[in-house]
């Protein structure tokens, strides 16, 4: 109890002196703010990329690819097989009673970038089946849906932003024919990359192909997945792997997010170390300025333990405003900013969770940097006080 009282007295004394040491205090705060600000801003990229990738994912959506396919490119689902897959159990049915399942043929084509004029690739997906039933987040913003069997395309709004010749009414020349853009769409909250949809049969025929890449199905409920897998296993002719959409999306974005997070923590750690050095220096100076006060208190019978505790608490409390400042600046500057590193496009997202992470880092920086100065404070000899009298 006595120690607690001493601790409290010391802490209030330390903090009351802060305004008089504005220079040192602000150095500590700004150092922490810079470290936390950079960490939070950089991690916001990973959060944004994750949100961009997973934003539209639904647990009921399942993707069927050839058994053993390493990706969409080497997966091959024949038209016959695609038809059989539609009748698997557990698939949700639309108002007309038809299963919600679409067959997709992927073709990677190129278009001219508006700004640089260079050619960039993006996927064109040939769809057979009710696309809007499978992708309810798809909203046509202008024009209309492509018609079955015709060489017509709809393009995401992102295509028109990035590439030339993607306005509704534009005609793209492919395989010796004209493919008019008949509609434009967006996909809900995500920024999205350029995606073009067209009729599956038309695209298969035009590109000389006889098979789709994959079949996408919408399940009744998420836990109908087991039944679906069992039914596939029971039929030896169905050589397909079923995986949740979430898993496929997570797999394909894991590398990007991994790189972003690694770089964030690498840079963040170095900045935190530098901030710690700066904070230790400031705290040393603050403790040195208080030597006489501390020695006097020691002479009055104050214990070493409360002194250490009070300095540690002080350093952590001083680091907190730095963290808040850093996180706020990161939020104000970068929240919602569009970024496109490594070919991915997303909005940076400074979330409360990141803010909390920033606070934790700040507390750790405060704790570590307070350690040595706290010990120094506790070892101030009593004679310092007596000599000063």
């Amino acid at each position, binding site marked *: 109890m006595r120690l607690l009282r001493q601790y409290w007295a010391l802490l209030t004394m330390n903090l009351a002196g802060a305004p008089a040491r504005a220079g040192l205090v602000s150095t500590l705060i700004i150092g922490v*703010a810079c470290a936390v600000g*950079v960490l939070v801003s950089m991690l916001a990229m990973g959060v944004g990329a994750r949100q961009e990738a997973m934003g539209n994912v639904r647990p009921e959506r399942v993707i069927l690819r050839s058994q*053993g*396919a390493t990706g969409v490119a080497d997966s091959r689902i024949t038209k016959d097989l695609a038809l059989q897959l539609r009748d698997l159990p557990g698939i949700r049915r639309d108002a007309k009673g038809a299963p919600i399942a679409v067959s997709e043929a992927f073709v990677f084509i190129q278009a001219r970038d508006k700004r640089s004029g260079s*050619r960039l690739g993006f996927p064109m997906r040939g769809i057979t089946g009710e696309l809007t039933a499978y992708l309810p987040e798809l909203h046509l913003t202008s024009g209309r849906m492509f018609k079955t069997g015709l060489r017509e395309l709809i393009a995401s709004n992102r295509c028109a932003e990035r590439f030339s010749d993607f306005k509704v009414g534009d005609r793209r020349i492919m395989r010796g024919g004209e493919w008019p853009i008949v509609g434009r769409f967006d996909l809900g909250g995500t920024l999205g990359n350029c995606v073009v949809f067209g009729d599956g049969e038309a695209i298969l025929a035009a590109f000389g192909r006889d098979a789709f890449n994959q079949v996408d199905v919408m399940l009744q409920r998420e836990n109908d997945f087991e039944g679906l897998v069992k039914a596939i296993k029971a039929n030896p002719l169905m050589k397909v792997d079923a995986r949740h959409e979430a898993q496929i999306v997570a797999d394909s974005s894991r590398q990007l997010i991994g790189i972003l997070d690694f770089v964030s923590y690498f840079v963040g750690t170095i900045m935190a*170390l*530098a901030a710690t*050095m700066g904070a230790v220096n400031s705290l040393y*100076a603050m403790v040195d300025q208080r030597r006489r006060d501390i020695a006097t208190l020691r002479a009055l019978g104050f214990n070493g333990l409360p002194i250490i505790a009070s300095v540690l608490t002080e350093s952590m409390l001083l680091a907190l405003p730095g963290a808040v400042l850093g996180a706020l600046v990161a939020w104000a500057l970068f929240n919602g900013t569009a970024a496109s*590193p490594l070919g991915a496009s997303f909005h940076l997202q400074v979330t409360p969770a990141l803010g909390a992470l920033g606070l934790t880092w700040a507390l750790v920086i405060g704790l570590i940097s307070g350690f040595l100065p706290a010990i120094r404070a506790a070892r101030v000899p009593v004679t310092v006080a007596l000599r000063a009298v």
Partner: protein
Amino acid sequence: MKFFFLIWSGIWRKPARTTLILLQVALAFALFGVLQGMKSGVERAVQDVRGDLLLVNPAAVGGTPLPVAHLERLRSVPGVKSVAYADMLIGTYQKPDQIVAALALDPSDEWLTLAPSFFKVLPKDLAALHKTRSGALITVDVGRRYGWKLGDRVPVKSLTPRVDGSSTWFFDVVGYIEDNEPGQSSLIAINYPYLDEGRARNQGTVRNFYAIIADPHQAAAMSERIDSTFANSSAETATASLRESAQQTMKTIGDLDFAIRAIVSAVLIALLFSISTLMMQSIRERVPELAVLKTVGFTDRHVWVMVIIEALTVCVAAAAIGLGMAMVLFPYAAKYVPGLSMPPSVLLTGLLGALLVALIGVAFPARMAARLPVVAALSGR
């Protein structure tokens, strides 16, 4: 000399404080060095990419592949020196996640000059591959992960079916290649004729051609010329030089520059504050000493210069240490980030930055030291 001694003792007046500042500045500039080195490394890597090597890809990947018959027409395009081609067989070894990416090379010796843009191969290894139809050259990484060694006959399961109906391809490991891409590699090199005659689908097609042109400055025009040669054919092409493709990739890293600038600014702001307040603190503690110096004849300007040189020495030395640390780290990081390098320009920018930070940070403390009234200082007021 007396100045040097005074400055030196000024620097080490509080060894702990100076060590911490040194560490802080060194860390900041090590970070600066790594970030800038990464950027300049990527830029240089793009510059080093061959400009005379055109990749002739199908206009639509996933559509009909390019027929190998395009070869003769490509060779006859004026300005094209030589042409090679390759296909790719994707498969797995034993487990679905043990991927094997087999690049099937045409039988020409062109690969001796072509290969370095993609992987490193010794002439004797390439000769061994050409001699063994079912041969394969593997990377050390693949050998280690899958347990393959010279002389092994390895099965690769693929979704590319064989004419005999099976889906397993056998290869004889006859040599080694070294992948240019860092990280986990799944690359092996095999013979195109073995793949093409063995597969049930897409016989007589290739993934892409490699056209070497006489004049690298004509790369863009030559690409257009090649594409127009095959325009409106059943297999249209999309041609780009390897360097142009690398530049595309560079652009996708685009925001790197902004991020680096933002991080470096934050680092410098924190440093400025640190140096400025700690120098202030140091001057305050040294008031009596400085007053004595002035009493024995040092002018205000002398003191001013001394304080500035003190800060400059610490900052520039620390920056040099930090940049040095980054350079020492680079060979280790090169495994993960290709082309890391520290050109003299980065080194110079770093040192100049340190100089600038020190000058700005010390400006106010130095002025304070210079204007110190002697009488007040000595009397302890």
